[in-house]
């Protein structure tokens, strides 16, 4: 086993305590922050840091640090479970705390990454967190062995107690933690066999829930600092436009108004006492915009632009297998269909906001951001200070869904305002209207698919032409290869179906509407296209849609798709009779390293009213940290996914978003909830994601049920735009 020196870590702790404390006193932060900092440093003295991830107090309290952020998915509990399993500690004595962003940066990114997204928290950190737990356990047992002067091999740790097996002497983790902290960190400690896990795989109560039911949880928007002022913002309604002028005099006398801050593409009103004052003054503020060059763009013109992408003679190829031309030439049946999906906005329940305090010495920010390291970088750049002078205070997020990972313009805005008023904390809050109209939207997409069936009804060829906006061309150029957005083509380019001949093309169609990753990213609209079209083929072949999929999933690489499809079909009793008028739809999809399928039961009455009766949704994510959190993610996906299928639509008129709040950007509510049955089928051997995969099969399973009920094939979303009355 390799050893790495622990010396730098020790000396770092001493240094940072001194420097950190000194800095805090110089800055004269608000009293609460000073008290908080003193409390933290007092705790640090009595809570030895065994490794960066694990602190153990003399009273045996175990503190496990969390680098990623909790936005509802349960990682504030699931991530500590990974550490605790290998630490062999008493789970009832574990507490979670966020790892400090500034410490992370000072200590050479010791917490690996602070990005939360892509359903990656558990699967990307499981190895190093389990390793951290195992290393800490070895250090604790070594410290006990030294104390007893016995070979470490004779000592075992379980439930926070170390036992010297021959003599049955015992000592608790807390009693040896300080000694353990002086030992070198073993680099490659052996990990447990998953069969021996006692914490992982068992449902655990989440750490964050008790404070969420009493209102004690302080989200970023709940930050309260002495002397804090509030900021309301209006951004140019047309994307790409700019601020021409404002008449600040007009609102100068309104209650609480401190000042008006013009930005290039927005204007901010700062007011004392309450955000209400700032927002009221903003509403009264005469603003002139230069709408720029996109003020004529509409959803119709965008659709026309997509159609041109479909009609292009050639487009970059995302997949090529076999020879589709000869397959189509000899086809008994050819099926062709165009599918469309609109822009969607995330609508996190906590609107975008950021609180910033700029002083000559440092900049503090509180923001609902999915990546605190990026937040620190954006803050430093905006404030024009070294990142070492930035403190990002980590808080739970009131929803994320991809909105606040790559794009944290609200941080930039708040820091800019704060820099104009050093020493005064500023809380910027976007109204819901700003949130809906200045999102980073799930891209619009139009797809043309063709397929060939031979005389026996067997599929022989599949061609796909995607015409859609690329999320990543502007921000992650390495994800664009030969003109293909490699994330945007997922579901097609990696489809597990065994068509002997396939040809797929991708026509990038970027508009002025800013795109962004929306929960499940390409796996929201692409599965709707693909799994609806597969249903069309089954129908054309005169086959049962479940059995038709089974036939196409017989290759070894499709075995996990097949298994989850079978598990869900069985749980849903696919072949059993249903009450009159109720029909089933099915879909399967792999994404984010996991395998999902869903069966939905729905009916449509004579008036065209849709009722969703039952959703059976299943996942194989390999190993599971906290099964109850995975279950909750699938339940939640049903609401997020079906809301999009039923109502979700952002439309563009005169270059701007037409919707503005929940009256015209409608959400599913409790009364519409079907029965939801979650099927967890973790087969082990790999770690898949859980936050997003559950989204994929929902819209197609629902639309396939609607087809079974009405004979109407839904080729565009949302459903609210369709007349579902039986023909």
């Amino acid at each position, binding site marked *: 086993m390799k050893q790495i020196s622990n010396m730098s870590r020790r000396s770092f702790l001493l240094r940072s305590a001194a420097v950190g404390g000194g800095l805090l006193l110089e800055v004269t932060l608000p009293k609460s922050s000073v008290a908080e900092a003193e409390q933290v440093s007092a705790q640090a003295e009595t809570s030895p840091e065994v490794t960066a991830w694990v602190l153990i107090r003399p009273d045996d309290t175990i503190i496990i640090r969390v680098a990623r952020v909790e936005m509802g998915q349960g990682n504030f509990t699931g991530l500590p479970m990974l550490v605790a399993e290998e630490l062999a500690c008493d789970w009832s004595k574990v507490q979670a705390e966020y790892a400090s962003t500034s410490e992370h940066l000072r200590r050479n990114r010791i917490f690996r990454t602070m990005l939360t997204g892509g359903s990656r928290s558990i699967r990307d950190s499981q190895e190093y967190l389990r390793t951290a737990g195992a290393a800490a356990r070895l250090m604790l047992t070594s410290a006990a062995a030294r104390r007893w002067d016995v070979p470490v091999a004779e000592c075992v740790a379980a439930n926070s107690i170390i036992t010297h097996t021959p003599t049955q002497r015992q000592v608790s983790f807390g009693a040896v933690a300080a000694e353990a902290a002086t030992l070198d960190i073993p680099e490659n400690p052996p990990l447990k066999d998953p069969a021996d896990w006692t914490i992982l795989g068992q449902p655990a109560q989440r750490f964050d*829930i*008790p404070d969420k*039911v009493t209102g004690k949880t302080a989200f970023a*928007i709940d930050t309260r600092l002495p002397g804090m002022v509030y900021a309301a913002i209006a951004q140019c309604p047309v994307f790409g436009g700019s601020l021409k002028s404002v008449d600040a005099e007009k609102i100068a006398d309104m209650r609480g108004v401190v000042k008006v801050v013009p930005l290039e593409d927005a204007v901010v009103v700062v007011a004392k006492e309450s*955000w209400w004052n700032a927002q009221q003054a903003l509403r009264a503020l005469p603003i002139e915009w230069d709408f720029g060059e996109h003020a004529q763009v509409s959803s119709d013109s965008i659709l026309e632009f997509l159609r041109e992408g479909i009609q292009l003679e050639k487009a970059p190829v995302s997949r090529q297998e076999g020879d589709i031309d000869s397959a189509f030439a000899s086809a008994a049946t050819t099926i062709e269909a165009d599918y469309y999906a609109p822009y969607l906005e995330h609508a996190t329940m906590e*609107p975008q906001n950021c609180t910033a305090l700029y002083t000559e010495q440092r900049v503090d920010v509180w923001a609902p951001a999915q990546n605190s390291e990026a937040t620190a970088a954006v803050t430093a750049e905006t404030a024009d200070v070294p990142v070492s002078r930035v403190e990002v205070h980590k808080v739970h997020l009131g929803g994320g869904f991809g909105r606040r990972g790559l794009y944290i313009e609200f941080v930039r805005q708040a820091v800019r305002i704060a820099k104009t008023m050093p020493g005064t904390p500023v809380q910027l*809050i976007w109204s819901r209207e700003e949130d809906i109209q200045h999102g980073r939207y799930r891209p619009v997409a139009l797809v043309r698919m063709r397929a060939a069936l031979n005389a026996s009804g067997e599929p022989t060829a599949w061609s796909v032409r995607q015409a859609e906006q690329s999320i990543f061309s502007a921000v992650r150029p390495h994800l664009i290869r030969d003109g293909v957005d490699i994330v945007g083509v997922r579901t097609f380019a990696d489809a597990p179906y065994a068509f002997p001949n396939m040809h797929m093309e991708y026509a990038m169609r970027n508009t002025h509407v800013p795109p962004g990753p929306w929960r499940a990213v390409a796996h929201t609209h692409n599965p709707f296209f693909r799994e609806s079209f597969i249903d069309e083929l089954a129908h054309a072949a005169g086959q049962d849609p479940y059995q038709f999929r089974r036939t196409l999933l017989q290759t070894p690489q499709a075995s996990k798709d097949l298994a989850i499809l079978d598990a869900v079909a069985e749980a849903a009793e696919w072949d059993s009779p249903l009450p009159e008028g109720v029909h089933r739809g099915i879909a399967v999809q792999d994404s984010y390293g996991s395998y999902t399928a869903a069966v939905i039961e729905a009916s449509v009455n004579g008036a065209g009213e849709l009722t969703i009766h039952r959703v059976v949704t299943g996942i194989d994510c390999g190993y599971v940290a906290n099964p109850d959190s995975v279950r909750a993610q699938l339940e*939640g996906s049903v609401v*997020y996914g079906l809301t999009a299928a039923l109502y979700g639509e952002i439309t563009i008129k005169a270059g701007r978003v037409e919707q503005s709040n929940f009256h015209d950007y409608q959400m599913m509510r409790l009364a519409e*909830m079907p029965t939801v049955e979650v099927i967890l089928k973790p087969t082990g051997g790999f770690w898949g994601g859980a936050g997003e995969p559950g989204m994929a099969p929902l819209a197609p399973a629902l639309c396939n049920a609607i087809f079974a009920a009405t004979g109407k094939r839904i080729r565009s979303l949302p459903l609210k735009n369709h007349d579902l009355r039986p023909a």
Partner: protein
Amino acid sequence: MISLTVNGTEHSVDVGSDMRLLWVLRDILGLTGTKFGCGMSLCGACTVHLDGEPVRSCVMPVSIAAGKKITTIEGLSTDGGHPLQQAWIAHQVPQCGYCQTGMIMSAAALLKKNPQPTDTDINESVTNICRCGTYVRVRAAIHTAAQKSGSNDGMKG
């Protein structure tokens, strides 16, 4: 000055009479458990009780609340011991949690009036928006709390 009774405590606040109750609670009194979600009475994140009735505080001028008994999530129980809060933990209802205090306040108003609500009663009364999609567990937790308080002979608060 406007006089308000919030969670049993009297406050005098010097604000404009049209300031919405939500912002008085959050920004003037520091009771941040009540949330801003839409500002148009659409989502229910701002739900509080006014003389026991659930109201959406984001559209209610503070002058209307003057002289009435206001209860926020901070006043629903002193220790998180309200049967709904306990049921919420037992069912592990919240995900991000942002909408949950408003959701609990809506449910609490329902149970006070109707200690044994049916699914239809719940559908009609708890119309709050949750983007994380906790509805299945919200419903289950309300039924659990109703059963508990039923066996304890009635719910207070």
